[in-house]
């Protein structure tokens, strides 16, 4: 079994998060589906945005995330989807990164890959129970970082952007040698209103 260093590990999680953003942006219709093309990754067909601006935007986020990841400064990664009209947070994807002490137990590449596959399948599958978004939405990326992390100027302090009256669903977790990632999606609870027509 070839030894993988911790930095490889983080890069793996970093990459994974990049695909998470893309998958969520596609699945939740934040950007039109025409913008996305399929890419083979982790034995899956991933949909990745082809829009130059979106690509550059995600790349900028990822470059900083990877820096933090290497130093193990991050405990949570969050994608918040907000309505453009009301500015309200409608959906919040939370990826908890647990920094586990590296132990003897090592994982094979294929096992890790399987774990990753399952998490992407879950993101895709959650579309079935998440409420429809009206399409006029935008997104933000938040990070829970240690207080002593170096913070570049593009990043600023923020509140947790929690969703009011949220329904929360825990997705399956995924782990590698040194990190474990738990996924949680919270969304606005939608009241079903029945309209009775008085005839």
């Amino acid at each position: 079994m070839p030894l993988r260093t911790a930095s490889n590990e983080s890069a793996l999680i970093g990459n994974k998060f990049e695909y998470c953003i893309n998958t969520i942006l596609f699945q939740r219709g934040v950007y039109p589906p025409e913008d996305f093309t399929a890419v083979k990754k982790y034995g899956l067909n991933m949909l990745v945005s082809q829009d130059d601006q979106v690509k550059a935007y995600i790349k900028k986020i990822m470059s900083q995330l990877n820096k933090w990841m290497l130093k193990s400064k991050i405990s949570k990664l969050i994608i918040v989807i907000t309505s453009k009209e009301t500015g309200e947070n409608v959906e919040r994807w939370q990826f908890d990164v647990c920094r586990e002490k590296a132990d003897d137990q090592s994982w094979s590449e294929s096992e890790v890959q399987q774990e990753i596959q399952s998490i992407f399948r879950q993101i895709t599958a959650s579309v079935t129970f998440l409420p429809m978004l009206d399409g006029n939405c935008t997104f933000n990326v938040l990070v829970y970082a240690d207080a002593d992390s170096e913070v570049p100027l593009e990043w600023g302090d923020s509140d947790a952007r929690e969703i009011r009256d949220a329904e929360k669903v825990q997705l399956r977790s995924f782990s590698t040698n040194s990190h474990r990632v738990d996924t949680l999606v919270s969304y606005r609870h939608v009241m079903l209103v029945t309209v009775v027509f008085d005839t």
Partner: protein
Amino acid sequence: MDAGSAHSSSNMKTQSRCPLQEQFLQRRNSRENLDRFIPNRSAMDFDYAHYMLTEGRKGKENPAVSSPSREAYRKQLAETLNMNRTRILAFKNKPPTPVELIPHELTSAQPAKPTKPRRYIPQTSERTLDAPDLVDDYYLNLLDWGSGNILSIALGNTVYLWNASDGSTSELVTIDEENGPVTSVSWAPDGRHIAVGLNNSEVQLWDSADNRLLRTLRGGHRSRVGSLAWNNHILTTGGMDGQIVNNDVRVRSHIVETYRGHTQEVCGLKWSASGQQLASGGNDNILHIWDRSVASSNSPTQWLHRLEEHTAAVKALAWCPFQGNLLASGGGGGDRSIKFWNTHTGACLNSVDTGSQVCSLLWNKNERELLSSHGFTQNQLTLWKYPSMVKVAELTGHTSRVLFMAQSPDGCTVASAAGDETLRFWNVFGVPEVAKPAPKANPEPFAHLNRIR
């Protein structure tokens, strides 16, 4: 029979215990291997929800729990604790908007997007005044522009007032030869009272309206007072002895607190806009952040942060007007850098080498820009875009290091005084907005009452 039944029941017990265990194991197993399409609801804490529905009410109704002082204490506690905990950071750039396939916006969007006209920044000073006998000393603070639109400048032993509204000059005071020269001037927030620091360690308080000496603060320092900063009725003074003293100007024994942390002259002193944090820079290359609520005279280290990144005297300090805990600091000749700090955490956010000693820093109140004044070799004022730190303009004209800068109350004009004994005015932060015909409330008595016809 009896024994048999007992045996069978015990048998059953052991049997039933085994399957139970197995079941438990299975359950744990099944939790790990959930069907990938069925979401796991372990995050929905039903026990907690039940508690909140039934028991949680009782606590809320109890008035003792939500007393305001307790709330405030809790809030403060959470704040102080938060400093050592995780921070939530957001990527601040706006994500690109999806491209609309139907160009229906072309007609509607264009007029709705008024592009801001580019501000013209004059490269030369608008006005130049003579400032003879200006002491060419990096560690002093001899220029201030008060909220009453009056500029004060100390030239040798004399403090002059220049009224920016009508351009008239008057003399406030000339200090005796043995007590002078004047080492610092600072307007109180009311724009009427002015503090004058002297070479003999005293600080005088003057009423500028009728040129009257109100009181003299003594005993705070053992040597010259080169820096002053107001925080409401607190006048903070920084001395050559490295001490920083908070003086309550209203009371007889005016020394309220003394901050000890600098080993050499305190040359930069600025209170944050909130009045909560004080930044002080010294000739010992150290920048301290003091917290008004944390500081108490009996703790050995009173400072909130001790920042040692500068490699020369820290004189230029400026609190950001649009981000409460952002401080810009500039280093002297051996350092030449402008550094940005998050004063909440003490983290250095950015550092830019300017290539020349930084004498003074000012933020633009209307735009995200920072103005710095420099010494050798250009003696220029540099306007930076924040946070990119791209140079927007370089204003030259002074022939010696630009020691002091002050900003007009409207935030548009900057006055700079330099070792070349001139005082120059620059229209660097934009032209003053044409005063909108504000619907001035007619001072008619009882205007808010309904009229009786």
